[in-house]
């Protein structure tokens, strides 16, 4: 009796001990909340199925073991009705799960469903390398160019995004396979050599969230950590403007039109002092 009770108790308290979901247990992104919902739903279904099948099995064992030894064994060819039942019910459950989750899956993975494909939401390219995240931003107000261009801004281990807006990033790797993992947002995507993989997500609240590598990528894998800094729209704009100033690049937002080639640009910002 001791072990089953302990097992049940541990299952019960695990979430409160932080053994369950990362962070406070509530996802920080809308898609994460929907993923969590799926998790709990599937958890409930599988728990129900588990308990019912255990009861059925226990019943069968009990029934068979209480048979008198002198009673002869019976030979029968199965029960058609029973088989239909235990095929149809799990089949229906699986179909239900398959259809029910499709929407979340599509929103998570199908680019055509991405809310963030409109101009301005592609905000950065994240390049994983042993053992850090190198980040390239476009000039504020411009879209990220697929290949580096002069005027791009660079940072390391800190990805800055605005809050409450769907954003998209491109994920690449310089060397081996890595995995871009935002545990509290429930976002995880492998970075695969030679591929540029778009990821989109939305953070609900400003704050700082862990960014981890979730693919064993070498001896320094354990320390391949970064942070996702989520800023309110104004703070985000200000931060990007400051970075633009640091990089001595004219932000598109502050110049009315794109500078014509050959004409000296008027929007020269002072270089960052350090």
């Amino acid at each position: 009796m001791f072990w089953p009770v302990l097992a049940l108790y541990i299952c019960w308290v695990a979430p409160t001990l932080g053994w369950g979901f990362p962070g406070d247990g509530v996802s920080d992104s809308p898609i994460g909340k929907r993923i969590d919902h799926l998790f709990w739903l599937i958890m409930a279904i599988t728990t129900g199925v588990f308990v019912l099948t255990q009861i059925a099995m226990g019943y069968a064992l009990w029934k068979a073991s209480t048979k008198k030894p002198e009673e002869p064994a019976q030979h029968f060819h199965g029960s058609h009705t029973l088989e239909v039942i235990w095929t149809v019910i799990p089949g229906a459950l699986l179909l239900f799960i398959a259809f029910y989750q499709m929407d979340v899956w599509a929103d998570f993975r199908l680019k055509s469903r991405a809310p963030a494909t409109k101009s301005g939401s592609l905000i950065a390219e994240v390049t994983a390398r042993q053992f850090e995240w190198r980040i390239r931003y476009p000039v504020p107000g411009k879209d990220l160019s697929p290949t580096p261009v002069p005027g791009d801004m660079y940072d390391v281990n800190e990805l800055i995004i605005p809050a409450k807006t769907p954003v998209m990033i491109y994920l690449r790797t310089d060397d081996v396979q890595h995995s871009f993992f935002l545990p509290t947002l429930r976002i995880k995507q492998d970075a695969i050599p030679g591929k540029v993989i778009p990821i989109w997500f939305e953070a609900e609240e400003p704050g700082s969230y862990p960014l981890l590598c979730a693919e064993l990528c070498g001896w320094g894998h354990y320390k391949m950590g970064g942070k996702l800094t989520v800023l309110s729209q104004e703070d985000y704009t200000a931060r990007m403007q400051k970075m633009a100033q640091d990089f001595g690049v004219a932000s598109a937002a502050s110049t009315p039109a794109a500078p014509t080639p050959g004409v000296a640009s008027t929007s020269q910002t002072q270089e960052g002092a350090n």
Partner: protein
Amino acid sequence: MNEMMSIRRPGLLSWCLLMLTTLLTGCMGSSQPDFVGSKRLDSLTPYAREAVQAVIKDKFGSPSSLRCPTTTVIATGDVRGTVALEESKATQETLDKLNTTSDLLIEDPMELTSKSIRFVPTLDQQFAAIEKLTEKENAAIKDYLAAVVSESRPITFNAEKTEITLAQPVKPASVNESEFILDECRALYRGQQLYMLHCVHCHGVSGDGNGASAKYMNPRPRDYRQGVFKFTSTAATSKASTADIKHIIADGIAGTYMPSFKLLSEDDLTSITNYVKFLAFRGELENRLINEVAFEYSQKAYDERIAGGEKPEEIETLFKDYLAQMFPDIVSSNVDLIAADWTAADEADSVITPQGPRPEPDAKSLADATKTSIENGHLLFLTKGQCAACHGENGRGDGVQTRAMQANAQGDMFAEPGLHDEWGNLTPPRDFRTGVLRGGRRPVDIYRRIHSGIKGTKMPPAGASLTEEEIWDLVNYVLVMSNSKGQPTPVQAAKPTTEVSSN
């Protein structure tokens, strides 16, 4: 049953043996790490070597017991506490209670007026805040209280407000309202702790760039002991500023094994930077002292003197005199020189800051109005700047100099052709087409690389031979090259390579 026992017994025995071996080897393996001296110490006569080692040991200690340096260049981060008494009158009630519970009899309530002592801990200005007092510091406060206030009185300590509330009021006269040191050298120890955690496996205990994993790396981890750092914001002849070192630790060096430590707190970064400077100072002083004594007391000089007819005892006596009379001054003047260099590098005017703006790459060059900025940059790259001799005509880091044999500072030839740095490692000129810039990607970073060179390497400073406008054009050209992986730049495509063949 018997069978089972006979299987078990050897198992138990081997388990014991295993434990014994781990215990023994464990003990043998745990020798204390020590600072290793420069290899050049071996070139000195034994007593000269000992003299230098003794000074270094005395000034810097060993990893297990650091000496708090006395120079202002390295922040020790002593934690000081200022004692302030908060006035609060003792009531007759507390007085009565006090008199019944303790054996000291106090008649006048005025004698007892203070009930709390506030410690205002302060660190070196560099370290913004004290998050929490350590156990050691709390113990220091307790000791202090034990000395000034009666030991038997219970106290509560609020670490956030660093306020100590006494259970009973004390006589104000018994508390010395002054500053005292709670903890010595906190920042240095903290820096060492972090360094041993994050950096030691690459940079080594002594900062000699010879940690356990260093031999697998190219470029090798930096050996700090020359006091030379590559990527700085300061003039060609200056040292790195403290901010430069901190910036490298925070951002790492792209394209090398040096990782970014951005997630460490500001205070931690400051502490590590400080410890790196401590190691650099130690190494540099050692090097300078070796140079000082090597002049007359290296093994080579010694052999020559013997050959010249001097007697070993004479030389040793001379050295003893030198050690007693001149050496202390030599040591302190070298300390001062090194400290002065570090201090100068931190002054605002040693930072290279371009005065004018950078033109856009395809805008008109400010140096030559007939060309666009990258066109002029390209021209300078091939001609006046002589960059192509090292970096190659296409910026691939394959210029002629990479194929020439080079000599080290002592005039000995290196085994393989190519450019070597001050540490004796092969350092190829940067291949700009890989798209990776190690010293930072801001235009001003590249400006500083070109203006001041890369210290300790063959990358020369161009600040004296090129104007600011010309350097900006080169910056633009480098930027454009590093953004077009493998492809020739637009200028090259548009222009026949006339300048190239003239080189």
